[in-house]
């Protein structure tokens, strides 16, 4: 790799890391504000104007709280759990294309940390690793409620990962590539995949809710049944890591969803914009557009959270195994038949 490319990559890694942390930080604030607005309240408004410093105050509190490791907990694993959760949440951002290429001083840089040709598989691998953080944490707590929460998380993730993978297969049949950058480029302008795969998108969306443990699929944590959930025994920043990982996961899965189905950094009439303003401004507008899609998606996650109550566990399993998986398979068949017929009749 040439030196400018290397420097650009390092800078991009740092920037993306910082952005995902800041977005996760302010997602906690946004969650409280959005919840307040949905419930005709005001929400945090004491720390700074409109409560804008609330995440800093929360973070400071998290760091200063007493750190408790229960006597009977498995000490090493107890610490590994939250670390693993936040690690897997953070490394998912490596393959997401944040924008099209920009040119600085004659060098062309891709706004993507690395374009591996198995990007989708990488994302899936990282996402499925994420449950280890919860699983290990619940196990190491040596608390039956935590363990129950962790088991719920594990079985939920396994069930929903299958239908998520199946819903993606139909998309991959159309795109013919596993590289996220190529998938994003194929949706140039307004040819977003969601128009071609509405059912697949719906399935993916439901599975994304389950994978990020967001309501209505937030079974791993449940005050009424499990005291707290997998994080019952956690305190201070270790609990903070778990909660933080959930918000980073939400950000990353929104980014993946935007890239796979909502055209990534593509927006209508982008060629006209590039022709009139130049390539670089058009690319930057693309980044802004992508973040707009991501933020709307995060808002949607919150919107659903404050609308729908939690599923019962057997309902969750029924939905996953008896409805989503058959639907995903039907979607694959439909896509296969449809695309074959279309190519056969020469469209």
């Amino acid at each position, binding site marked *: 790799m040439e030196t400018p490319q290397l420097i650009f990559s390092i800078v991009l890694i740092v920037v993306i890391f910082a952005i995902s942390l800041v977005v996760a930080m302010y997602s906690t604030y946004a969650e409280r504000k*959005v919840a*307040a*607005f*949905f*419930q*005709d*309240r*005001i929400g945090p*408004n004491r720390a700074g104007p409109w409560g804008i410093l609330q995440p800093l105050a929360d973070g400071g509190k998290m760091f200063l709280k007493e750190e408790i490791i229960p006597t009977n907990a498995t000490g090493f694993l107890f610490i590994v759990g939250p670390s693993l959760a936040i690690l897997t949440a953070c490394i998912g951002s490596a393959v997401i294309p944040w924008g099209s290429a920009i040119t600085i001083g004659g060098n062309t840089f891709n706004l993507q940390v690395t374009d591996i040709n198995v990007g989708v598989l990488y994302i899936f691998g990282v996402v499925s690793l994420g449950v280890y953080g919860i699983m290990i944490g619940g196990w190491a707590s040596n608390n039956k409620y935590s363990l129950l929460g962790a088991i719920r998380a594990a079985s939920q993730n396994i069930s929903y990962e299958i239908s998520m993978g199946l819903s993606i297969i139909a998309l991959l049949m159309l795109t013919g590539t596993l590289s996220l950058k190529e998938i994003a480029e194929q949706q140039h302008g307004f040819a977003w995949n969601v128009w071609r795969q509405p059912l697949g998108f*719906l399935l993916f969306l439901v599975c994304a809710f389950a994978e990020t443990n967001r309501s209505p699929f937030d079974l791993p944590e449940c005050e009424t049944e499990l005291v707290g959930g997998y994080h019952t025994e956690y305190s201070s920043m270790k609990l903070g890591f778990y909660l933080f990982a959930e918000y980073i996961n939400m950000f990353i899965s929104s980014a993946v969803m935007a890239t796979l189905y909502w055209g990534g950094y593509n927006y209508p009439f982008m060629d006209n914009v590039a022709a009139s303003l130049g390539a670089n401004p058009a690319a930057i507008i693309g980044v802004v557009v992508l973040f707009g899609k991501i933020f709307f998606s995060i808002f949607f996650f919150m*919107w*659903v959270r*404050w*609308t*729908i109550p939690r599923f019962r566990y057997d309902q969750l399993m029924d939905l996953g195994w008896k409805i989503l998986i058959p639907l995903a398979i039907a979607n694959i068949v439909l896509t296969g038949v449809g695309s074959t017929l279309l190519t056969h009749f020469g469209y």
Partner: protein
Amino acid sequence: MEPLSNKRKVLEVKPLNFLERAYLPAIVGGLSTTMKHFFKKPVTIAYPEEKREFSENFRGMHSLKRDENGKERCTACGLCALSCPAEAITMTAAERQKGEEHLYREEKYAAVYEINMLRCIFCGLCEEACPKEAIYLDGDIVPADYLRKDFIYGKDKLVEAPLNQ
């Protein structure tokens, strides 16, 4: 059996139709409901800065009133203590001395007047029993405190502030 009224309704439990079983229309309906609330005006009252108005018949902390000349109205007749179902009021009467005419309206006054706020049930019977219009429950909510003895309110907390101050 003969129905007692004609209000009885026979419930028909129909199986859910396809759209209802698909669950999604219901979710969309729910989402639109919450979205409507998103744009509503918050009903919050930011408490320490703004306070909600009490209703007109709210009964809060007691106050012992003064008359138009600033003299204490209470004559320590004890009717309030007698009418108090919680037995929260105690008082000691004293005779007005020479030179105290500007302080007390009549010859007898309450030297000690105590209400135990932990016993008081804010029924308002003391207010009704008082023949001198001396006691009213027109104050604020009784504030919290740490010790039980601090809930016994004496004249220092109950008597209205003097007029010309």
